[in-house]
């Protein structure tokens, strides 16, 4: 949480990128403690690796420091506080952390846990669900990441060239 506040308040964007990498790594550790092996691996690789590299690449193309901000932005802070209070009040209706009788564990999940090896012969239940029971969602995801590659290519393939509307020319 301290790291998250630091990411927001630091002016030097390079430090913000590094703090974001630390935040990703801490979340990956949190996922590992919460028994999510696959997710921890993915978050560590993606968050601390790829996101940070891309932000650093953009920093070489743009300014490194952001503009100085006047103290706290009060309208934004009030919106955030009101939303936060509403969410905290809504969250109190959710089931308790970690109880085995939560509704989320009741319907489809026991079937997956018991039948995954019998149906698929694959010990890793997450992979069995991801590529076996629900592989059409994974297909959609592959298409999404391919589309993102296409989008970045279409945005950045032509060279920079002359700037479009350049008010600096008249000065």
């Amino acid at each position, binding site marked *: 949480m301290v790291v998250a506040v630091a990411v927001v308040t630091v002016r030097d964007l390079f430090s913000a990128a590094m703090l974001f990498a630390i935040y990703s790594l801490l979340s990956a550790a949190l996922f590992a403690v919460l028994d999510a*092996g*696959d997710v*921890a*691996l*993915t978050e560590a*690789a*993606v968050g601390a*690796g*790829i996101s940070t*590299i*891309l932000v650093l*690449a*953009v920093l*070489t*193309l743009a*300014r*490194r*420091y952001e503009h100085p901000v006047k103290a706290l932005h009060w309208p934004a802070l009030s919106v955030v506080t009101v939303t936060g209070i509403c969410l905290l009040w809504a969250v109190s209706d959710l089931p308790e952390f970690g109880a085995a009788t939560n509704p989320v564990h009741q319907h489809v999940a026991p079937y997956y846990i018991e039948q995954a090896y019998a*149906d*698929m*012969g*694959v*010990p*890793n239940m*997450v*992979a*069995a669900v*991801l*590529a*076996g029971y629900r*592989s*059409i969602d*994974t*297909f959609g995801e*592959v*298409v999404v*990441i*391919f589309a*993102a*590659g296409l989008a*970045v*290519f279409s945005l*950045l*393939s032509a*060279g*920079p*060239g*002359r*700037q479009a509307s350049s008010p*600096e020319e008249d000065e």
Partner: protein
Amino acid sequence: MRDNGILRIIARFLIPLIMLFALYIQFHGDYSPGGGFQAGVMFAAGWILFVLVYGMPAGLSVIPERAMFVLSACGVLLYALIGLLGVALGGNFLDYAPLLDDPHAAQQAGIILVEFGVGVTVACVVMLIFTMFARRRSQFVGEWKPGDHD
């Protein structure tokens, strides 16, 4: 960075290990945490490390950009083809049961092939995105005022 001895030696040691580990995660996704996405991202990270140490032209001569385009599309097509193969052999879309005789082997074969397609696409797309961003810097023509990097 090519001249920095420590970086070169460590990179020479680490990059093959990273790529090998990515392949290990790819094919052991059935037995341990892993699978296509993690493996693809790690492979791309290994290639990015190579580019950071040895420079962009060296990186592009190892994996040319054309190969990245073609392979990323091939990954998606492999996934779709496995799905259509299920249809052609008499099941639903992305049904692995008609592929082989033994039901367990059919499911495992389907999952391994599908995850391989996913891994290839993810690796190529991440490498492509990094290449697009990294090349922009060297192409930047125009008003790069000296006070920009303060």
